[in-house]
């Protein structure tokens, strides 16, 4: 741990913490036993959405607390729950066309193009762009552009049009994964072959061998390059 201590403000209160901690570990260093606003601690779950401002600066910035170092005179407030809109649907019954967006998330058509969402995204995603793709029913592009989304909801917290971006993107990705990308022939064949019992003898023979023989088979198996 670094010896250099800096002042930070959690929920308006001043604390001295080592300068090299993340916001999350600094909160703990200051004495907070976290229950909310923490999950993976590694940038994957989106539980630790956080807003901060540096003293003297008016701009509100956003980040993931587990992924961001504290700075001197940082004012921090966590945003551990953001009430997004999630519309239910039956993935088997929807059609992969633009109409589904109009039906489930019509508010995306009120986007004013302010780009606040993109500016706020801690994953550096072009959020406004993926919403534009969703509006046009270009689900493959929306899926690709939004793929790294951790669903923290920060973009939505800044959107004047009340859009729940990560839910829109998730719908697009599910449509893309299920309907738009080609099916894997190998996979379909293999599922059928297993159902037909094609591999059953093989595996039974293997499982019924004495352990010594299995060990030898393992040690001498050929390994694909």
């Amino acid at each position, binding site marked *: 741990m670094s010896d250099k201590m800096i002042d930070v403000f959690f929920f308006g209160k001043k604390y001295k913490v080592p300068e090299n901690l993340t916001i999350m*570990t600094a909160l703990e260093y200051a004495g907070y*036993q976290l229950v909310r606003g923490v999950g993976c601690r*590694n940038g994957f779950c989106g539980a630790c959405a956080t807003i901060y401002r540096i003293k003297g600066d008016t701009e509100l910035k956003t980040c993931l607390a587990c992924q961001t170092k504290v700075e001197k005179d940082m004012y921090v407030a966590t945003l551990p729950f953001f009430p997004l809109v999630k519309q239910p649907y039956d993935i088997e019954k929807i059609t992969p066309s633009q109409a589904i967006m109009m039906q489930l998330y019509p508010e995306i058509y009120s986007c004013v193009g302010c780009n606040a969402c993109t500016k706020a995204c801690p994953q550096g995603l072009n959020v406004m762009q993926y919403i534009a793709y969703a509006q046009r029913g270009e689900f493959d592009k929306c899926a690709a552009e939004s793929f790294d989304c951790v669903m923290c909801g920060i973009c939505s917290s800044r959107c004047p049009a009340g859009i729940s971006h990560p839910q829109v993107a998730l719908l697009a*990705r599910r449509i893309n994964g299920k309907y738009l*990308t080609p*099916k894997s*022939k190998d996979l379909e064949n293999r599922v059928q072959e*297993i159902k037909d019992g094609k591999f059953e003898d093989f595996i039974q023979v*293997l499982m019924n061998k004495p352990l010594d023989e299995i060990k030898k088979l393992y040690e001498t198996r050929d390994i694909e390059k």
Partner: protein
Amino acid sequence: MYTDENMLASIEKVEAARQNNAVLEPKRMDADEKDTLLQTFHPDYIQNQFAKLEIGPNKGEKAPLELVDLLQGKSRVKENQFNLDNPDYDVDVLIIGGGGAGTAAAIEAIGTGAKVLVATKLRMGDANTMMAEGGIQAADGPNDSPAIHYLDAYGGGHFAAKPELLYKLVTEAPEAIQWLNGLGVEFDKRADGTMVTTHGGGTSRKRMHAAKDYSGAEIMRTLRDEAINRGVTIVDFTAAIELLLDNEGKAAGAVLLNMETGEHLIAKSKTVIIATGGAGRLHYQGFPTSNHYGATADGLIIAYRAGAKLLYQDTLQYHPTGAAFPEQIFGALVTEKVRSLGAKLVNKDGVVFMHPLETRDVTAASVIRECKERKMGIETPSGGQGVWLDTPMIELKGGEGTIERRIPAMLRMFSKYDIDIRKEPILVYPTLHYQNGGIDINADCMSNIENLYVAGEAVGGIHGRNRLMGNSLLDTVVFGRDAGRNAALHAKDVKVGKLSLHHITKFEEERTKAGITSETLSPKLLPSYTHKKK
């Protein structure tokens, strides 16, 4: 950013050797070499880090010290503290834990028409599943078969897996992938739909399916969305702290704790599924961990107290490549896929010291040996050690852009600290990653307690004494679905008797009899990282 002089000097050597190292095919170890290496350097073999259990179903067997303390700990509640006749929830299937296994179970259970409740300690999806990067195995390639998958996993797990569980894992794997894809999970595919697959440590075929290096996140967010679509009742921030049995000793619900208000809730159910995941946050032997914040083995503890038998509770998986630097991400996972894609492990002199795709236990032991015995590790500013994982080799081999396309999360994680893994190697050391052992189940996912099912990382025996990469996401789906279906179908025939917490009193008596005086409350629920000021 690397500023330390020793590190910089070592990086120069790594760079100088890179071209040669990249094309080198290091030899693999034979069975004897591996055995000796493991026994000398793997943490599971350090005897004084384990103790014998003095009470409970596994009495006489050993377990890590930290786990023994919790397994033999004191309950957070008392037998007659609650009126069990007016439960707050009354359902068919109670699922404890909202990670991959619990959520897959919920989807299948509600599919049978059952009334399902998921109680989860953090938010649904704040779980190890969300963090899985590398991928998920299934033998669907033309040169592969379930039998080859079986052999790889059986050998990788030191021939200790329960055959009937492993059989289920490998034969239902392709269907699990198909199910996920059918729900909309995006897999890396070529234009014609062929899956892009890679090796993992110990695999003899390239059968790792991935969604870039967000494989678990992609699976978890899709499963969660689907569970919500289907109307599963989900209660976040609510941990199970004790199982309820009925007067015949069958599982019949749980005592829940609202993590925020401290309120207790009683959930009555016909069947219970434990899907509480791993134990990394117990920091066995002081190791850092790749696991999510709530990974404290709670399911094992409450099941044990109720009489469930554990299997292989003494074997843990230390992932060979946890981040050793910078300090802010100490212990965070560097996915095995980095090695699958071509990065090799290199010591401080720039020498490749092993084949990068040995099984995890062997690789971890080898890294520890390189640092501890051979003194060829690189010191970190915070006093730790590590070896290099030479990531720029990936682009030498796969061409520019491979890293951004295949492992964007890794690129992002290090770039936050000004390390460009396309150009600079990264420093790694083993991190506590997975609990190989857990609750013993049969092929229907039921434990020795009637009506108590288990799925996911909380199960012991699927992988034997060491798990291969990609078989765990797979088991959460295969066993999660199966547990969900079985628990729901079986619930139709269950009549719950009178609810009881008498087993915790009995357990307390055993404690006293055995002279156990520790005041440790269990389950642990959350680790405490608060600064210990006076």
